[in-house]
Each structure stands twice: as structure tokens, then as C-alpha cells.
């Protein structure tokens, strides 16, 4: 099995990528605006619900219960889905899933598919795989269309093109849709997308979707969306293929009463998103005649295997932690090198890959806790970040300079005499850099500490020295 999370394995380390992105003023303006708007809307509609905390707790408990019994719920889902006329496929990793999907499309002799936004398919790099197999995928979510036509990568789980402003979108559409006179009002751009995609919705015979939830009890699949492109993709084509990460299972239909309150309010700050589509299998003359579900592992069982961090799989992909994160709000999503950005991406991406790649991501956080506070399913992201940092150090994968520094600090702090020697030494070494009690302009590797802030210098007298002196003073 080889887990693939987009291009995360080949991505640059977070600090390197972030440093470059931070130079982009436009990007930071776009990010600040977009995340401010969603945060404001979210706060308003979350405050409307007096039982928000109770909903969060219930959601957390349901998700933990599902993980514990995942095997039997998957069996039940498969059985119910088949009973409803669906076909169920299992995929150990991304390339197996991509192969299954390309196979179904080829069997129907088709060379085009319409897609409704699915992060899981981005995780699988499905579009690349389809194109390699001679199949053209059309993204139909407005933001995904902007990403696809702009040959760009998603930078947010819910609003993947939030790093683009209207004039950038206009430029992409003008070029790729051949619309010279296109205006730059969001209304104009949205209308252009409607026009561009309508013909594809009515013509293309195969649709691909993800799933927000899959119900074990009924074999139902739920797709949550706003634009109507989801409804188009799941109800107009003749064949529908739905990709379901194995952690998306809910035991019963009634569990939706929790998650359909938490998700829209957390994701887009709406009381309810405009459209939810729920179906189980094909349905006579209504909608697709053939329905396939691809159940995907791709590293999810790696995440499950560590009880300290398995709750990462509780995530319902609302993106609230991204909008709340002071790091994400500065760097944007591309710095994370993964389709999953922000705090959840910082814990999910490395775990899916069994900590073999993306090891810089658990460090991309100040551990302020804002992500935990807004998480609708109460994933303790800060705790998991710390846990993963520990795991990475245990594996000996921490950066060499950090390992040496930690060893040195450990040595000095383990004994009072050593500490006092170290302090004396530091007082001598710091002299050329000390100004008014602060250190400035430290050289080379240490520059990171002083470039953007003051670092307090080691004081002239340590507490121990002061204490000892004080004793003498009162004695005489």
C-alpha cells in the first residue's frame, strides 16, 4: 500500500514555503478579508444556538463510537448500499481508487466526467490519474473551477480559491472561457460559470462526487453544498461514482440531526447550506441508473492505529480551524503543501502518510488553541500537534540543529552547577548583541529569534546568585 496525499510527499517544508508566500501582499489581503468574513458569519449563527456545546459533545461521541466499531459499520453500509442497488468498491490507497474509477468510466466508453467538489479526490490526485487515462474531468464547484482553469491548487478546505480576488478570477475566466468582455463583479463571474457549465451538466454521462456523510443504517450518502452543482452532478448523469473516506460513516440517519446543525454553521456561517442531497442507490427513472461507491482507506487506518491522535479522523471538513488559525491567516493554504491546509491539515497530512512525509507541519502552529475552540466535533488539535511533534522527535526525524540544541539544553538544565556555568557563559557570549537588556541581530541560525522581535538577554545576576548574595547581606 502506498499512501498519496496530493503532492504532499514532494512538498517543500512549511517554513520555506511560508517565507515565500508571506512576501505576497495581495495573497495576505485576500486571505485576511475572506477569513474575517467567514469568522464573523460563523460567530453570529453559532451564538444563535444555546445548545452548541451539547451538539459538539454529541458529535464527538458519535464519531468516537464510529471509529471504535468502524469495521461493522462499514460492513453494514456495504450491505445496505448493495440492497438499494448500489455497487461497492474498496480501495486500499489512492492509486487503487483512481484505477477503479477510471475502469468504470472506460467500461461505459466515456471520456468525460463532471465532478462536484471533493477534497478526497484532490487527496487522491484523481484528476491527474483520469487525464493520464485519457478522461477529461470538469470541476463544477465555482471555486474548484477557478482552481482548475487557473492550473492552481486549493488553499482552503471549503472555499479553495479564497486566495484569489475578483480581478484574478476575471483574468482566468477571460482567458480560458474566451470571454473578452467579461466584467469583474462577482455576479458577472458567477453568471459566466453558470453558462460555461450548464451544457456540461446536460451532456456528460458520468458524475463523480465525494460524501459528507454515509449512513450505515440505510446505505444513504449525503452531499452538502451551496451552488446546485452538487445536485446537478448527483442527479443528471446516467452513472454516479461517489468516493467515501472510510471515516465518513454515521451509524443512523437520525445522527444527521447533529451534524447538519454543526457543519453549515461552522463551514460557511449559514444556518443551513442551500442544498443537501441525500440518496441510497439508484432510483428508478429519477437520477443515475448506476451508482458506485468507492470506500477509501489511503492512510486512514494509519491514523486510527494511534489512540493518542486517532480523533483526527472525526473531522467533518468544515474549515473553521483554518479561518481561526493565526498561522493559516498569514500564510494561506499553499504553505502546507497538502490539499489539507491549516491546523487540521497540519495533523492529518503527516498522519495519513504514517509520519514519513510532511514532518514540518506539526510545527506550523503557535499552539494558541483557537482551532480546538471552534472545532464542531471537538478535535483537540493542539494536543495532537504536541503528540506528533513528540513522535517525530522519537523517530529521530527532528532537524539536526534542533536535536543538538535540545540535547545541550537538557544537559544544562539537569544540574544546578551546569546551569549556572551556562548562564555565566551566555553572559559573556551575548555581550556584543546586547542593547538595553535585549538581544538584537543574533548571527546565522539564531537570527530567527531576533529578526522580528526582542529577545530578553540573560540578566547580569541569576536568581540563585541574588538569593545567595541577599543571605550574606542580612548576615552582616
Amino acid at each position, binding site marked *: 500500500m502506498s499512501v498519496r496525499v496530493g503532492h504532499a510527499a514532494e512538498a517543500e517544508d512549511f517554513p520555506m514555503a511560508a517565507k515565500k508566500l508571506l512576501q505576497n501582499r495581495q495573497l495576505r489581503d485576500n486571505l485576511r478579508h475572506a477569513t474575517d468574513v467567514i469568522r464573523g458569519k460563523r460567530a453570529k449563527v453559532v451564538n444563535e444556538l444555546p445548545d452548541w456545546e451539547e451538539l459538539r459533545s454529541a458529535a464527538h461521541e458519535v464519531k468516537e463510537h464510529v471509529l471504535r466499531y468502524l469495521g461493522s459499520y462499514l460492513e453494514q453500509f456495504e450491505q445496505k448500499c448493495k440492497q438499494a442497488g448500489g455497487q461497492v468498491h474498496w480501495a*486500499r490507497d489512492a492509486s487503487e481508487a483512481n484505477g477503479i474509477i477510471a475502469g468504470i468510466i472506460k467500461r461505459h466508453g466515456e471520456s468525460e466526467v463532471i465532478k462536484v467538489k471533493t477534497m478526497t479526490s484532490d487527496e487522491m490526485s484523481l484528476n491527474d490519474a483520469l487525464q493520464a487515462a485519457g478522461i477529461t474531468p470538469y470541476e463544477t464547484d465555482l471555486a474548484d473551477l477557478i482552481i482548475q482553469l487557473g492550473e492552481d491548487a486549493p488553499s482552503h478546505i471549503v472555499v479553495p480559491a479564497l486566495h484569489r480576488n475578483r480581478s484574478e478570477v476575471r483574468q482566468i475566466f477571460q482567458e480560458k472561457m474566451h470571454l473578452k468582455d467579461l466584467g469583474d463583479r462577482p455576479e458577472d463571474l458567477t453568471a459566466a460559470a453558470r453558462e460555461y457549465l450548464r451544457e456540461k451538466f446536460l451532456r456528460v454521462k458520468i458524475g463523480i462526487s465525494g460524501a459528507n456523510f454515509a449512513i450505515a443504517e440505510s446505505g444513504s450518502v449525503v452531499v452538502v453544498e451551496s451552488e*446546485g452543482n452538487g*445536485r446537478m452532478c448527483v442527479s443528471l448523469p446516467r452513472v454516479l461514482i461517489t468516493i467515501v473516506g472510510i471515516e465518513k460513516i454515521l451509524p443512523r440517519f437520525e445522527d444527521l440531526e447533529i451534524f447538519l446543525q454543526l457543519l453549515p454553521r461552522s463551514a460557511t456561517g449559514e444556518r443551513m447550506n442551500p*442544498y443537501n442531497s441525500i440518496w441510497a442507490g439508484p432510483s428508478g427513472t429519477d437520477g443515475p441508473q448506476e451508482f458506485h461507491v468507492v470506500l477509501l482507506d489511503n492512510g486512514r487506518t494509519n491514523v486510527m492505529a494511534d489512540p493518542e491522535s486517532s480523533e483526527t479522523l472525526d473531522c467533518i471538513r468544515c474549515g473553521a480551524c483554518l479561518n481561526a488559525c493565526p498561522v493559516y491567516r498569514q500564510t494561506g493554504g499553499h504553505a502546507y503543501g497538502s490539499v489539507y491546509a491549516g491546523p487540521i491539515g497540519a495533523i492529518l497530512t503527516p498522519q495519513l502518510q504514517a509520519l514519513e512525509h510532511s514532518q514540518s507541519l506539526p510545527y506550523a502552529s503557535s499552539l494558541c488553541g483557537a482551532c480546538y475552540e471552534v472545532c464542531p466535533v471537538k478535535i483537540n488539535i493542539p494536543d495532537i500537534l504536541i503528540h506528533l511533534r513528540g513522535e517525530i522527535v522519537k523517530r529521530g526525524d527532528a532537524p539536526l540543529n534542533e536535536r543538538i540544541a535540545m540535547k545541550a539544553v537538557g544537559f544544562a538544565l539537569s544540574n544546578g552547577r551546569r546551569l549556572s556555568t551556562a548562564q555565566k557563559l551566555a553572559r559573556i557570549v551575548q555581550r556584543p548583541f546586547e542593547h538595553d537588556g535585549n538581544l538584537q541581530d543574533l548571527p546565522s541560525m539564531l537570527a530567527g529569534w531576533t529578526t522580528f522581535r526582542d529577545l530578553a538577554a540573560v540578566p547580569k545576576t541569576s536568581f540563585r546568585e541574588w538569593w545567595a548574595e541577599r543571605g550574606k547581606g542580612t548576615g552582616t
Partner: protein
Amino acid sequence: MTNAKEEIMRRIQNATHGLLERAREYDTISRNYIQSGTRDQAQRIELFCDRLRDYGSAVYTCQSDEITSGIANLLNTRQLSCLLVPSGFPAQWLPREFEFISDHRLTNEQIGRADGVITACALAIASTGTIVLRHSEEAGRRALTLIPDYHLCLVFENQIVETVPEGIRAMSTFSLAPITTISGPSATSDIEMTRIKGVHGPRTLDVLLVGGLNV
């Protein structure tokens, strides 16, 4: 080589050992959130209308013996003449002066040529302004309420529940039918978080709220 399902199941089996003690049994999951509403019918209706208007939907009202004239007034206001209805839609509700096409296996192209569609719904949820369509029943096939640019939905006052849990429980009784929930017309905020109405679904959603008994 084992097949994919066997291998995934084996991996899950190995992984769940560590989770044995922490998780609750299904029946002991704490559900201390609000399960049902406290408003009376008049307050429920008021909340529902308020939410719909907040999304940009127009709400019209009539009594159950005025449905025909209610529909006629609305279509005149909107200047529409050719409307689709699901097969089985009560013919006695339809005003004579307009053209109505009943859905008997219409193609998507035929559906696209109509001015709009009129349906009823299975239920509505006041707190979120949500309309629940049960397909191939009173709401017709999914394409019918999706391709046209205009949707007029009849909601009977006694179909409105207050909270999402009440709504989901009602939906669970027909969970095998395709279901679409609609909360305001199609919208996107993908460009600079500016909410734009009408991307792919009907750009206009009107609700005709019918008082009196459900017929």
C-alpha cells in the same frame, strides 16, 4: 494477495484495539442538545417566513381553498406562462389560464425549456428555513426542481416543524427516497466571500404558504 476489503478490515481490526475503552456504546451517547421546539404554530410560521426572507426567498400566503388563485396571482406577478408539475400533482390546484406540463418522462432538454416548476414538499424546518423535497413523490423527480430557473413550492402550515432534529426524524421515515433539502435559492460565496444568488439551481425560489388543513 488478499483483496482490498479484507486488507482494510484487517487494518481496522488491528487499529481498533487501542480504541476499545474510550468510545461509548451507541445508546449511551449523550444527546443533551435541544430535541424539539417550544414555539406554537403561529410563532413557528413566523420564524419560518423570517428565515426564508433572510435567504432572499419570497413568501406568499393563501388559505387551502384559495390555492388555485394563489398560484395564478404569483405566476402573473412573475410573468410566467409555462410551468412543469410532477406527475400526480393535484390538477384542481392549477389555474386554467396557464400552461402546465405534467412530468411523464420528460427529457432534460424539455425540462429546460419550461419557465419553471411547481411542487409541494414533504415538510419544512422553521429554525433553518429549510424545505424538504421527497423525490418522485410530491416533489417529483430531482431534475424537475433543478434545471428550471424558477421554483414555486407549496408548503402547508401544518408541515412546518421547528427544529432540525424534528425535521430529520420526520425525514428518517422516508430515508430511502432521494431527498433534497433546500434552504434558500442556490448561492455561492466563492468570490471574495460575496454572496451571489443563483449559480446552478433555480435562481428564484418562491414559497406559497397554505393555511388551513392539508388537502
